[in-house]
């Protein structure tokens, strides 16, 4: 089963390695991982999608908590969070098919960010299902290459994972 986990970490060298090393040595399968800075200086947020066929997520979160540089770990339930991903996708588009690709892009509110004589690069963002749908639709034109950011997510509503504990910390 796939879970989306948000991990607040101290922004120190080697932290990403500590987290990914933990996942690999414990046999937790990382589906995607995105890291970036946050509103708090010195604190970064990792959004990890982990695939756990036969273990409760609690095993992972407890192990993560043992890492000294990990400040907070929260599971983001799909219904209670906003999940987004961004994809850059380059597809074959000759002059006669180009307009079809443009149309699809418009439907998906994708931005065309590069055009050459026989290719088009689109930038599409949104929930992972939307990205997957766009990818499926343009496949027939021929995908030259693509890249995804990995999922990022935030809990819905006022509640944040930056709670008192973290405020005290930073």
């Amino acid at each position: 089963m796939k879970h989306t986990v948000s991990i607040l970490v101290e922004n120190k060298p080697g932290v990403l390695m500590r987290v990914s090393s933990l996942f690999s040595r414990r046999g937790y399968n990382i589906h995607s991982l995105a890291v970036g800075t946050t509103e708090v200086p010195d604190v970064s947020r990792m959004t990890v999608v982990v695939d756990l066929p036969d273990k409760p997520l609690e095993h992972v979160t407890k192990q993560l908590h043992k890492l000294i540089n990990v400040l907070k770990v929260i599971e983001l339930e799909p219904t209670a969070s906003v999940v987004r991903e961004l994809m850059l996708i380059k597809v074959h588009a000759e002059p006669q098919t180009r307009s079809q690709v443009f149309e699809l892009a418009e439907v998906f509110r994708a931005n065309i960010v590069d055009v050459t004589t026989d290719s088009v690069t689109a930038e599409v963002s949104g929930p992972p299902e939307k990205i997957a749908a766009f990818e499926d639709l343009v496949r027939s034109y021929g995908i030259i290459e693509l890249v995804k950011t990995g999922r990022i997510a935030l809990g819905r509503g006022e509640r944040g994972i930056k709670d008192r504990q973290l405020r005290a910390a930073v």
Partner: protein
Amino acid sequence: MSKEITGAQALMRALEAQGVQHMFGIPGGAILPAYDPLIESSIHHVLARHEQGAAHAADGYAQASGKVGVCMATSGPGATNLVTGLASSYMDSVPVVAVTGQVPRWLIGSDGFQETDATGITVPVTKHNWLVMDPGDIAQTIAEAFHIASTGRPGPVLVDIPKDVLQAKFPYHDASPVDLPGYQPKTKPNVRQIKEAARLILEAERPVIYAGGGIIAAGAGPTLQKLAELTGIHVVTTLMARGALPDDHPMCLGMPGMHGNYTAVTSMQRADLLIALGTRFDDRVTGKLPAFATQAKVIHADIDPAEIGKNRRADVPIVGDARLVIEELISALQAEFGKGATGDYGAWTRQLDEWRSRFPYRFTQPDDGMLKPQFVISRISDITGGNGIYVAGVGQHQMWASQFIRFQRPRTWINSGGLGAMGFGVPASMGAKVAMPDDEVWCIDGDGCFQMTCQELATMAVEKIPVKIGIMNNAHLGMVRQWQELFYTERYSQVEFGWDIPDYVKLAEAYGCVGLRCESPDEVDAVIEKARGVDDRPVVIDFRCDPRENCYPMVAAGTSNDDIILGPEFETDHETHGDTLYSQDPPEEDS
């Protein structure tokens, strides 16, 4: 306070500030700057002969004393040689601080001479580690290192310091109080869970206390004894908890697990309540997990929340320090007893006593036959009254030592339980003796293990560290030989060493130690006494033992604890209760 000193001087000051009295290590290029101010330091540095020895010595030092063990090594090969020791300390939750030199900052990442990524290599085997890139951070890092190593669930940490950081001059400041936002171990148990645990304890008919190494780490031995006496609940002491309750105590059932005794193993299998304290349901204890203690509810208390529910679901999970947990449990139970509640385990106690009298550890020492290692170890235990500190290697002799030594107090049994690192014994006994010079320290070793780290005999001879090392010389890698006999149809492959090479007596003498040999049962007492009489250097005794002796009872790896194999000593015992003496199924996994 802002006089300029070097990073190396800051390191020594920081270690002294932590109360470090001893450390074990070997110098080399990158750590050289640290060895210079060491000359003026109050810290006594024991010059090991191999960094693995230094790391195991730090582990033995910590296990024996409860203080943080310290080892130091240079970059590259020095650091990699520490890894086995750190891994052992990590598996056994032993507080150790390792300090390593690193190539200068400007060389990092360039494959410089003797550069290895020490922090990268040790991430999986340390609780935390640091690469210190600024001399101003040394004191604070050392303070954090000791704090992390010794609090919560203890464990090893590593501090890697580039050579130029050690050399740099800077205005020194003492460390400020340690404040780690991501590290807040919880020691006080939750009151509701304690109440719930007390309720289960009063309801149970067949409870067993499953005590692990956390009892020793928390200094909870006497508190545990109080709990056992108050409730009348018997205690099994795992390989990491031997001595947590004295073996002579009537409530102590001894060691459970793969080579545990029948009663300890079976009490857990038949229990309706396991009170697991400071323990982690290791596979060597549980056997085949789905078949482990199937009728038992579980109260699981540990300082490490990640252990709770990791292998076995807990009905009552309690996060906290073992001593605090037991104290709270005792008050909760006393309150219940005050209201007239009682636990009734009479029938269960009679059952346990019956098993104990029928299925003790057994061996037969023929008067004129070959030495049995169990006999030798029993004699060491009896003659020393179980009052020494006993250190073991890994293998059959380790299991026999754990079975046959009658431990009297915590921190007197030291081994590499979780990692099972051969070569642990000699250097760990060195560390134990340095920490506890007034205690008699015995290393029960195997001939295979001994040969992995016996170079530390030189260290001990020079430093006058008088440990007694009894080699149970069975001329084989005995434990592996046993597996080949039992599970590989006696096809012996690469397990024979022979008795005579090396000549352990000459080897001991060459290292400046006393070397003794013992080949028959009637010499055993005399040779032990002779060794006890030496107090200015180590003694090595070559006990020539029966190579065919196997270690029983045994639960073959991957099988159920119900299929405990009692061994040939029970073959003629026709009153057995119906459990199999020999398991039919081949093991599923390897040692």
